[in-house]
């Protein structure tokens, strides 16, 4: 309920500027130990989050070597994999997240795209 209310607010303001009005993000990054790809992925996502989601995200980094059961229950196939749990819909990002543009697109963090998307969603 809260989400939809704030979304309406966003629409009315028509400018994606005020961070405090946005939904908070729940992200989970599955990595495999300290491989180069894992390390890169962690660095990349931290950077993206700090730049675009400052103060409204929770990021959990999970090493599937340590918790292999999660690989099965969370349907993890590739590594590293970033899962966006919230806001919906569920999305998986595979790879070391070096392609910032795609990550931002996938996280609905591209201002223009985001706006259009929201318009589309409302219709």
């Amino acid at each position: 309920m809260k989400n939809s209310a704030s979304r309406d607010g966003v629409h009315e303001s028509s400018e994606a500027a005020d961070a405090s009005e946005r939904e908070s993000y729940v992200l989970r990054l599955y990595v495999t130990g300290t491989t180069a790809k894992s390390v890169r992925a962690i660095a990349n996502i931290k950077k993206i989050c700090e730049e675009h989601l400052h103060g409204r995200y929770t990021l959990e980094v999970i090493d599937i070597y340590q918790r292999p059961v999660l690989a099965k229950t969370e349907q993890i196939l590739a590594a590293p994999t970033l899962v966006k749990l919230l806001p919906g819909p569920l999305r998986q990002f595979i790879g070391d997240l070096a392609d910032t543009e795609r990550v931002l697109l996938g996280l609905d963090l591209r201002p223009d795209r985001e706006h259009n998307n929201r318009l589309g969603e409302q219709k």
Partner: protein
Amino acid sequence: MKTKQKTKNQSAPEPLEKTATGIAGLDEITGGGLPKGRPTLICGTAGCGKTVLSMEFLVRGATEYNEPGVFMAFEETEGELAKNVASLGFDLERLASRKKLLLDFVRIERSEIEETGEYDLEGLFVRLSHAIDSIGAKRVVLDTIEVLFASLPNEAILRAELRRLFRWLKDKGVTAIITAERGRESFTRHGLEEYVADCVILLDHRVNEQISTRRLRVVKYRGSWHGTNEYPFLISDEGISVMPVTSMGLNHTASEQRVSSGVPQLDAMLGGKGYYRGSSVLTSGSAGTGKTSLAAAFVAAAAARGERCLYFAFEESVSQFMRNMRSIGLDLEPFVKSGLLQFHASRPNLFGLEMHLLTIQDLIRKWKPRNVVIDPVTNLINAGTATEVTLMLTRLIDQLKRQQITSLFTSLTAGDHGAEQSEVGMSSLMDTWLLLRNLESNGERNRALYVLKSRGMAHSNQIREFVLSSKGIQLVDVHIGDGKVLTGSARLAQEARTQSEAALQQQQRRRRQHELELERTAVEAQIATLQAGLAAKTEQCKLELDEEAMRYQSSAARESEIARNRMAQVKRVSDGRQKQRNNGSQ
């Protein structure tokens, strides 16, 4: 210790170790199973049985060889899988709860995935590794890993990772099955055979003249002998059954016991006792020669002994069969009612050949009859090619023999002339072959029967006339005169002739006997007269002797009287007489 052993095995030039699949027939074709500790590729078109085969590999491994297995599904969820194979009698949930089997459904949705840079499939490895270690799996199935090609955009990464995966599976020492869709030009759509090179099995589902048959072929088996043919296989409620003819185990024990054919005269022809128990009998002949009647007689006799009989009728409905058999004095109704006789009437082209074999095997397994009749076996050719029928029969007969079930097959042949050739394929499978023929002469057709072969018994070499009447089946000696076999009314006429001749002869014989009797009486009378004469003579002789003795006695008495009268002179006189007699003799 264990790893040491393993490396030692790998380095030594020992023959390839194999993992038995437990799938009927497959282990025979592959000479013992799939290569142990290596991945095997199973490819085929959609719906050809890849999933079933690989699942059975795991289930058999878990239940029969105590080798737990991991099934990683990319297409079906755990629930769907369990439901789909439940019809094969596999209880996946029970196996899973006993830690014998682990199902893992890998769900990948292309639309939910965003590629954002370099990655690998370590997640899959972790899952698989965890699954294998959690139950100590020895067998792994990946079904169908090619789905990944559709879900993951970067083929270069995928190929590299698959290569790594198969190597990893080898290192892990698990025997794995990887399934793949059949490609148009290569074995698999994405060329997986390039990575899995140890053993490739191809499954096929072909429709030939509206009848579909599944086939299996071992395309490649590195380091091992394997059957190269295409083998038909079927999916029954017991799983997959491959039918390799080469694997025919001719090691069933042969029974010494005999069973009646239902026709006493036929038993007499078969060494006096009938068929061997557990043997296969073929009765062949053209239309209307009495094949079914002979089969019915066999069944009736068996049921009368209290044995269960299974009758597959591919020509007549049950009620028609009953009516027809009643007309020759065989009432099978009571046996059906008492549950000793079961009929299965269907048109052969109702199902494919494999389905027929399946039904037959199934009923035999469930009902455990001691006798089986398939009437006629030739109708099954409509459901497959002649080669397939022969294959199927080989398999069936093999099974029947192993279970000591006596089987009778009827076979319709096109004409009287080709009768012996047309059965060549089938006849070698049969122990006893009765040939029924129509003999046409004197404006009528008569049935004749002879034993073409009967293994292991001294059987008659004679043609008998086969007479069907309301009293039942009779085998009558045929008459052979002037080099011609006489049957039917010609035989009856000949019989009448012979009979009258015999009567005449008997009359003559009786007359002669009478004459001789008379002669004998006459001689006896003569003997009596002569004996009477002899007796008279003897009497006379005796009388005369007596008289002589009396005369001598009386004269002696007279002499002694005289001597007594003369006194004292007796001695001298007698002395003097003696002297005189002595002088006279000198």
